[in-house]
């Protein structure tokens, strides 16, 4: 997304940005991260690619405004971010419209069709699922025992039984249901990352063992 902005965030400007969130640098860092995550989610929900780059562009623009001496009210700081994000989003949409091209005129390396290597990883869906299950087993085993039991319990049962089970689990843990869901989400994020790494390792191993993959 360097096409959007030539301006880079320097340390001094970033310090000013953080200071707008809170005078405590640690609290400011947490708040900054929350806003950044929200902006990434915004671009993701709006179907923009890549969402991270657009979020960075938004933050850069806000920081630049601050550097240029713009006055931003503390109470509406997050709203200011959102306003800038919306502008970035609309600019992105216009640029995408301009850059839209029929598939027929794309060069081969620009063609969005799936490469044969990507299509044929050499593994059937069943093998793929088995690899995923094996990886998930390893990933789940790597969790602390309490965390592992909790997330498995969270997914125990079906439909109504599962809902009741989750309520009991939240009571047992002494947390509101919403907190439990968020806690589970964090564990899921870890597991998802672990699964991606595990599968990448297994594919790398497969390629090393099969010269066919060295293309």
């Amino acid at each position, binding site marked *: 997304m360097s096409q959007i902005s030539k301006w880079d965030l320097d340390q001094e400007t970033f310090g000013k940005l953080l200071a707008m969130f809170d005078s405590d640098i640690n609290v400011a860092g947490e708040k900054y991260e929350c806003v950044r995550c929200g902006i990434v989610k*915004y671009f993701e929900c709006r179907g923009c690619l890549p969402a991270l780059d657009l979020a960075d562009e938004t933050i850069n623009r806000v920081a630049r405004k601050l550097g240029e001496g713009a006055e931003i009210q503390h109470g509406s700081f997050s709203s200011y971010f959102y306003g800038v994000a919306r502008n970035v989003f609309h600019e992105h949409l216009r640029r995408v419209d301009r850059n839209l091209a029929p598939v027929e005129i794309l060069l081969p390396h620009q063609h969005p069709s799936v490469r044969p290597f990507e299509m044929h990883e050499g593994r059937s869906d069943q093998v793929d699922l088995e690899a995923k299950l094996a990886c998930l087993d390893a990933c789940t085993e790597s969790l602390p025992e309490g965390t592992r039991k909790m997330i498995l319990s969270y997914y125990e049962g079906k439909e109504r039984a599962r809902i009741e089970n989750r309520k009991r689990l939240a009571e047992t843990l002494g947390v509101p249901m919403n907190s439990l869901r968020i806690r589970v*989400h964090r564990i899921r994020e870890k597991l998802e990352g672990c699964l991606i790494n595990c599968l990448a390792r297994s594919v790398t191993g497969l390629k090393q063992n099969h010269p066919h993959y060295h293309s």
Partner: protein
Amino acid sequence: MKQVEENDDLLTRYLLGDLSEEEQERVEERYISDRGFYDQLLAAEDDLIDSYAEKALTPQQLVSFEKYFLRSPERQNRVAFAEAWMAYVSHQWAAAKAPAAAKKTTDTKRSLFEFLRPAAWPLALRVGAAALLIVVGGWLTFEVFRLRTQVQRAEAQRAALQKQNEDLEQQIYAEKNRSLELAEKLEQERIQPVPPNQVSSEIVSFFLTPGLVRGTGEAKRNVIPASARDVNLQLSFNDEQYERYDVVITNVEGREIWRKDAGKPQSRNGGKTIAVRVPAALFKTNDYIVNVIGTDSSDKVARYAFSVLRK
């Protein structure tokens, strides 16, 4: 709690693109500034993805999900993860429930055994059970006795049949032995043929025609075994001059060694036959001449060469 549910509904609709632009902006501004609301958005997103992975979305939600929500590759990856995760969790719980099901069966069996303990029964049931036990026990005793008698009878019949079978087998065995002995004897006799005119071990018979040696087949000598007491000579000739005839036996030197009045000859096949019995001891392994002479004459009507082999 109600607020959470309302938020969930709102966030789900937002994620599916079912809100107006104005509603969307309100939601977006809120989750960018409110960490709690943002977390709730993440949780709602997980629930939505799980529902899709478990095919629990309504048809309308499904259309929105695939048309709107899945535009992002990151979200597609999250769906792929959720599908794998749901499969994993199902496997885990299925594996965990298998031993639990086995335990449940054991518990059921245990409760059944518990019920079978008489101490756990009420008094009336215990009395009834005792009476039933006596009746059934008596009937069983009678049945056992009856069956035992039948078994003994069957056993005796089986023993008799076995004995009969053994006798028959012995008879068959004896018959087989006899058959083998006879076959062996026949074979021996085939290998060592008895002279054709021999009728018993004590009397040896030879049929002689004039000038020819007969009775031993290809052998030139007529075998007279050591056990032979008499030699029966049947002599054929063609002569009708005399009513009676004598038989005279000489050795090769012409010396007479035996003579006897043979009486009247018998007619056979257009010729005459006369028979004499000569003591076997008269013969040794040697050549002899047998002559038929008319009685009271010296006319030799027939002459036979008789070569003897004593064994």
